[in-house]
């Protein structure tokens, strides 16, 4: 119910927003931290993180639609579209049924800074990614 209210609140505001939420944890002593407020992602070298994407735009709220991911420097991180074996409710000026969740996997390949852009039909978000050799 709270999720539905939040969805309708966003829709009533008429804003377009893509929200990324981490799905996985790093191994002990390693870093994989997604900050959706500052749009930053910190990763240890060799470590991966999975996150899901939720979009709200023009009356729609639910899993991001037509999602793609781009990396500025593929030497520093690798980014892949992924999937989850679960559904999430969606709303499109009313209940629009369950849709497959939209997920991504990013892997820190070597120390450095780069940007990863998640581009969807519901908007896009660019993450500042830092990979450290810890």
């Amino acid at each position, binding site marked *: 119910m709270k999720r539905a209210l939040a969805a309708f609140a966003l829709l009533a505001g008429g804003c377009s927003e893509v929200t990324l939420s981490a799905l996985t944890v790093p191994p002990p002593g390693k870093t994989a931290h997604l900050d959706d407020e500052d749009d930053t992602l910190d990763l240890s070298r060799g470590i991966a993180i999975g996150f899901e994407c939720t979009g709200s735009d023009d009356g729609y709220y639910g899993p991001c639609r037509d999602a793609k991911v781009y990396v500025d420097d593929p030497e520093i991180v690798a980014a892949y579209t992924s*999937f989850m074996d679960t559904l999430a409710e969606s709303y499109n000026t009313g209940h629009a049924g369950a849709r497959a969740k939209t997920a991504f996997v990013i892997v820190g390949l070597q120390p450095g800074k780069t940007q990863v852009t998640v581009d969807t039909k519901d908007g896009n978000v660019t993450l500042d990614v830092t990979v450290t050799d810890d």
Partner: protein
Amino acid sequence: MRRLLWLVIAAGCAADSGALGNTTVSPECAPTDFACVTAGLDGPLAVGGVLPLSIDVDALGTSSGAMTLMSGDPRVIKAAGTEIVGLQAGVAALVMLSESSAVDFLHVYVAAPTRVGLQRIEDGLVRQEVTDQIELLVGDELVVEVAPYKDTQRLLGHATTTWTAGAPLALLKDGVPARRRIVARTPGETEVTVTSFGFTKTLRVAVLP
């Protein structure tokens, strides 16, 4: 009946799930090789160790497609097909790719072995590490497997292995490179020596009349 019981137990404790819950990963082995099946990925991969993996997609309504592995840190783990090799101590993500999509991933630890040990295999199950002299009667058989260890922790993976034994024994291949079937042939005292991962382990064996 006892084997069936172990098979049931093995089915519930032999694998690790990927981080996204889309896959189950375990060492590749025959379903009746209980010593292998029951182990799962229950320790770090040894530096120099080779480990073939079985990757099953758990998504409902979807079978496992063609899968390739990508190492998050090729200094730590080398991935070739669905086989991984430990190269240096550390931890790295192992990403399961189907075409250009990541199906799941698993972080795998690699550790340098400090010794090798011999494990006794009985009824297809690892019984224990053999640490003391073995006594056999003529005609007795014993299956042993060499495994890398970091102190007391058993590591995963196999490497090139050489075996030697004295005349009272016959060392027979058992279908797995790291295993041998020791058969007592004549009375006497001797040693079984195995070298793997750069370490040598010697087992004293007495064959009694």
